[in-house]
């Protein structure tokens, strides 16, 4: 596989269930070494996408190549090179942490001793001390870490992580996110991260695909998404006192100003872009208001997400 080639390429991927459309014409791609986040609320189609790309589900229509393979024809060959952390860790409670790893190692064609050696991965996820303890009593966070070690057992080229931090408390979440940051993306590995947590995606992902109800609503780097979606640029003006009604009048008649509201100490103005700020300041000065401060706010990831969500909720 050439360096320029994509690890994942899919086009118009579609899958429905008797209950309805789970994924509607998804087109995305991932470059080698990239962390790609599939971001969206429950039922958005993230898990379905992951199952389709790993050849576990068949599509109704659409095409895909993953690691240069057709997931639905060369499923076994593909799955030999991918690792998956499913949403519920999927450990067998009847066995110990190490036995869970060994079982998967054997199924992946490792020898008994090789599988045991690779079991040392448990130390890297900080579960070495519980390697020989039955999984039954493990906390959700411990299970996720063991399952992450299991997903990394054969050093996969492509790693799918389905809601790796769901059900975890803040400390466990931090531990798992740090692990993903350090372990998962090691060795130029490509990672697909399904999550409904924006912070997680923002922290780990190079690019994000935002899904709602089976549809792709935005796809790009966090900055791309902001630029594409956030046509409203927020400027906070410190005028020492609330902006007067005539000033508000004057501001909203400016080109590119969508909205202006008085606040305790001045006004909040929504413009189209950064370049509109000088005109806003000039209008204040012209109206006789002293300008003590101008605070143009770049939209953060959260703003972007909610903008997309709001846009998705409105039928086109």
């Amino acid at each position, binding site marked *: 596989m050439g360096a320029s080639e994509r690890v994942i390429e899919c086009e118009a991927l579609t899958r429905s269930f008797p209950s309805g459309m789970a994924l509607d014409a998804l087109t995305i791609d991932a470059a080698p070494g990239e962390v790609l986040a599939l971001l969206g609320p429950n039922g958005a189609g993230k898990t379905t996408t992951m*199952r389709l790309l790993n050849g576990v*589900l068949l599509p109704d229509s659409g095409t895909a190549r993953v690691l240069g393979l057709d997931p639905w024809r060369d499923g*076994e060959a593909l799955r030999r090179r991918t690792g998956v952390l499913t949403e519920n860790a*999927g450990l067998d409670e009847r066995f110990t942490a190490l036995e869970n790893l060994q079982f998967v190692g054997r199924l992946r064609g490792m020898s008994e001793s090789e599988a045991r050696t690779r079991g040392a991965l448990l130390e890297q996820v900080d579960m070495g001390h519980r390697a020989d303890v039955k999984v039954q009593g493990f906390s959700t966070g411990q299970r996720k870490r063991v399952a992450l070690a299991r997903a990394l057992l054969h050093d996969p080229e492509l790693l*799918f992580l389905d809601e790796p931090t769901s059900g975890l408390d803040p400390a466990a979440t931090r531990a798992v996110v740090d692990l993903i940051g350090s372990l998962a993306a090691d060795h130029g590995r490509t990672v697909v991260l399904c999550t409904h947590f924006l912070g997680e995606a923002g922290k780990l992902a190079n690019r994000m695909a935002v899904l709602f109800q089976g549809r792709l609503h935005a796809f790009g780097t966090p900055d791309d998404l902001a630029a594409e979606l956030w046509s409203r640029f927020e400027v906070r003006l410190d005028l020492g006192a609330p902006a007067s009604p005539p000033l508000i009048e004057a501001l909203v008649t400016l080109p590119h100003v969508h909205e202006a509201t008085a606040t305790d100490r001045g006004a909040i103005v929504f413009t189209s872009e950064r370049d509109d700020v000088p005109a806003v300041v000039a209008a204040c000065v012209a109206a006789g208001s002293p300008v003590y401060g101008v605070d143009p706010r770049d939209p953060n990831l959260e703003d972007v997400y909610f903008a997309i969500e709001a846009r998705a909720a409105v039928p086109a």
Partner: protein
Amino acid sequence: MSERTRTDWTAVRSIMGRDLLAVRRSKAVLLPMLLVPLLMLVLLPASVGFAANRGGLDPSQFLSFVPNGLAEPIGRYPEHEQVVILVLGYLVALAGDAFAGEKERKTLETLLHLPIRDLDLYIGKLLVGFVPSVAVSWIGFLLFCITANLTAWPTMHRAFMPTLLWAVMILWIAPGVAAVGLGVMVRVSIRVNNTQEAQQLGGAVVLPLVILAVAQTTALLLAGIWPTFLAGCVVWAIAIWLNVRGARSFTRDRMAARL
């Protein structure tokens, strides 16, 4: 859905190995699995036989203490091997765990994301039911033969078990009946969400089959060796048809759509 067409026995063995290890470790599964055959094939026939030998006690008197369902087959000892098939039916019902158990333990999705061929997964689950059932029933039958010979020794003064006809029954027909039962159980197990449901639903189908098989063996024993052998062929033909169809309709996509 696969480029490989040959069975990957390492994968099949790994799947079997894990489930068998789990059975070995679970007293709740292992004890009944061993005790029911032991009770039905060794302890009860032994006590009936010894009681009959002592003269004074009429076996039917003893049997009045035994639960209804068990009394009938036991009462005919040591004439028929039907208990072996009953035991086999019981063991086969345990195979309801095959896929329903994976769903219940939430381990199925992980399994589907592994590089195992659909067919190998099916074969693994089928053999996990088949091998121990047949092994336990054969060992149970062996013990039963020893018990029968020992208890009958005072009157017969020779070892009369097993006869050739019995051997055909146990070595040929019984595994065939098990394979038919497993074909049903595994397919039921795919459709339901937990082991208990699978065992109840599967049992409702398998039990009449077992009873039918038990009823037919009486006629077969009278008919002789060749009809018995041919009957076994018919049973195996049904078993193979059932399981080939089961394996064909078993796909990852279908399993994943039921997650």
